[in-house]
């Protein structure tokens, strides 16, 4: 699997994500700066966590309009897998590649802890190494993780099976306890929890590793 990790000013999980990808795929991803308008030929584009552009205006809003995102959108439309983690999920919603928006946590506090999740679909390029309905523990670290969309969008996500992960104990007020969603092709995944922070035992958990292994296997 050839992968690229997008790096914005303020990204802070880019290297962790690169390490997790390299461990699963056996080759290091290309690190692509946000001002680059071109992407190398890759099978996966990862948009990492952090605080791109300092979360100015709204989380992900400025990053969504950076030069590299036009290339990301074009590749996504052409079927390249795109993974947005945390701030990356916020960027994907602001770029219009995923529906809805991540608002301020309902409790107004930054949440940085492990959360329990359920795998809602195990038949995608991102999740095939998980068992359907599997219980996972992954860390979250966000201020704006409260997934909001209109009723029709939530109904569509539920009806079309586009919810990827759900919180077992909703920490941030997200509609339908949504922690991650797919686009209709299930080639784009946005999720608030951090699989790359739970990809090696030394990090305190390994439940995130299968996501990168799923991608490496699917996109070999």
């Amino acid at each position, binding site marked *: 699997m050839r992968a690229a990790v997008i790096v914005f000013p303020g990204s802070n999980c880019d290297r962790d994500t690169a390490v997790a990808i390299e461990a699963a795929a056996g080759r290091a991803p290309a690190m692509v700066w946000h001002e680059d308008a071109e992407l190398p030929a890759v099978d996966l584009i990862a948009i990492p966590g952090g605080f791109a552009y300092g979360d100015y205006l*709204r989380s992900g*809003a400025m990053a969504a*309009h950076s030069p590299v995102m036009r290339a990301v959108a074009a590749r996504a439309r052409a079927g390249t897998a795109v993974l947005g983690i945390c701030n990356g999920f916020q960027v994907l919603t602001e770029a219009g590649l995923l529906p809805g928006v991540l*608002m301020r946590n309902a409790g*107004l506090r930054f949440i940085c802890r492990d959360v329990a999740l359920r795998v809602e679909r195990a038949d995608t390029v991102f999740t095939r190494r998980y068992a359907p309905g599997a219980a996972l523990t992954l860390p979250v670290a966000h201020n704006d993780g409260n997934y909001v969309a209109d009723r029709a969008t939530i109904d569509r996500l539920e009806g079309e099976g586009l919810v990827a992960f759900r919180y077992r104990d909703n920490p941030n007020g997200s509609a339908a306890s949504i922690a991650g969603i797919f686009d209709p092709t299930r080639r784009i995944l946005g999720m608030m929890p951090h699989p790359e922070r739970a990809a090696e035992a030394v990090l305190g958990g390994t439940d995130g590793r299968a996501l990168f292994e799923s991608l490496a296997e699917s996109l070999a």
Partner: protein
Amino acid sequence: MRARIHITLKDGVLDPQGKAVGQALAALGFAGLGEVRQGKVIDIDLAETDSGRARESLEAMCERLLANTVIEDYEITLAE
């Protein structure tokens, strides 16, 4: 020409910040408060002198960047 843009949460979108502000005001002893909602104000100086074209351009700015219309409404006010 100067424009002022108010960006507010749509009706029905929960505003935890506004709610916290309301609670803080109540704690300070301000009585009789209903709902408190928080928004943003953005002032923009424009070279454009035609108000119709200015408004058109500002609407495009709001739709593409300044507001997230999934959850936010915007209102444009032009000053001479």
